[in-house]
């Protein structure tokens, strides 16, 4: 990843700033859109919201063979798609969880973690962690 690529997304990644479509209300994250990817409505203004970091797992897989960028964190890696409590269906990684403990419906929370290193410098965003109620 080029440095400007990382820098452009810093605020959204670090502060979990998402967007809500002014027409259909869908939560769009990451990357702001001028045109809603779901309903196609042109967004005259970007409506920003802070994501509620709590949510639940909708589906998951446990990768035993690393995909691009995953090698440095070693297999296995748990990929998830989660629905956040206040909206947003997010692709992510589930960390700090044993592979055989993952369940659809499990409660999770987004925490800031290192995703990968680029030229030795860590690139951060958020990963899901299990929360015990």
């Amino acid at each position: 990843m080029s440095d400007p690529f990382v820098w452009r997304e810093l605020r959204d990644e670090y502060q979990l700033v998402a967007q809500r479509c002014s027409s259909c209300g869908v939560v769009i994250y990451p990357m702001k859109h001028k045109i809603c990817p779901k309903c196609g409505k042109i967004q005259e203004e970007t409506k920003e919201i802070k994501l509620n970091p709590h949510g639940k797992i909708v589906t998951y897989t446990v990768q035993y063979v690393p995909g691009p960028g995953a090698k440095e964190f070693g297999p296995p890696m748990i990929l998830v798609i989660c629905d956040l409590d206040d909206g947003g269906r997010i692709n992510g990684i589930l960390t700090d969880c044993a592979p055989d403990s993952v369940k659809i419906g499990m409660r999770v929370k987004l925490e800031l973690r290192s995703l990968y290193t680029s030229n030795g410098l860590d690139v951060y965003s958020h990963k899901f962690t299990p929360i015990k109620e």
Partner: protein
Amino acid sequence: MLEVAVIGCGMTPFGEHYGKSLRNLVEDAYLSTIRSVDKGIDPKDIQAVWYGTLASSWASFPIPDFVGLSQLPVSRLENACATGSDAFRNACFSVMAGIYDVVLVIGAEKMNDEPCSSLWNYQAMENWNIGRSMPGVFALRATRHMHEFGTKREQLAMVSVKNHHNGALNPRAHFRFETTVEKALKSRMIAYPLGLLDCCPMTDGAAAAIICRADIAKKYTDASVQVVGLGLATDTSYGTMTDEQLVGFPTTTKAAKEAFQMAKLEPKDVDVVELHDCFTITELVSYEDLGFCKKGEGGKFVEEGRASLGGETPVNPSGGLLAKGHPTGATGVAQIVEVFEQVRGQSGKRQVADAEIGLTHNLGVAPEGSVGLVTILRRGT
């Protein structure tokens, strides 16, 4: 709009061809295609080329050199794993529009040794997709499908068993071994719930087809195959991944609808299917998405033998991507090759009896979205 027919098809054997370069593969596919034309064809009849590759070369440059067709219009096309079908589709459009009479389609991929920034090295568009491998992307659908519909890993394994059985009958397949449900379940876990035998291999290969206006096909063959339906659809899973996208590929359904409408046919009319089984789950959900059974019943469909060679809708008689292999740019064209041969009765041990109408389904998927392509071919009269 003019009618289009396929008059020749050819492909290299698919496999790990460390001894062959991209040039060798394209040459072999091209030559076998030229030679497959029943009444022969003068290469000078070819007026344009559509060349599909994911990442094995750059622009249209290889073609004039590799196949000795200099100064022709060559378009290089890429649409993820649906590259081959999209090259075919665009080639067909040029003939349907009356711009060209005879057109060549080539799909090729060298995945194993030449620098290939393909699938496995693909750069995630943004941080949230980092680390996702292709098996992972599909495995996410498998987990959800199992959760919603009770689909079992055994049923996924049956897809692998069926396709490996078919591949064993196909001299051009990457893998020629039979397997069992037990072996598939015990195979090394790649991305839960997909094990090694649930995944297609990294394959080298090339395939080609020659398309011409249906009203001049007789010059080349008395057994041309008509292109009667073409459909393509895309969607985004961008932050809006729908419940349907979690258990299948709505792009497949949309592309199929377009193709069936153009062909004025329905799923029940189809005699043979070559669909995009990059992973067992993909085949299973594609039975549903293409309309051969209801959503959620894909497991039952394969378990009851309905997709087997002797079943009501034989799927992937070639062995599919799982056993025949998946050189990404070539796959879509190779599916055309199989259906072409099937409806002409040329498939030997894998022949589907009385195949008249065949359907190919080619799918490209990434975390960001997917592209689905459906082509329907019919034995010419």
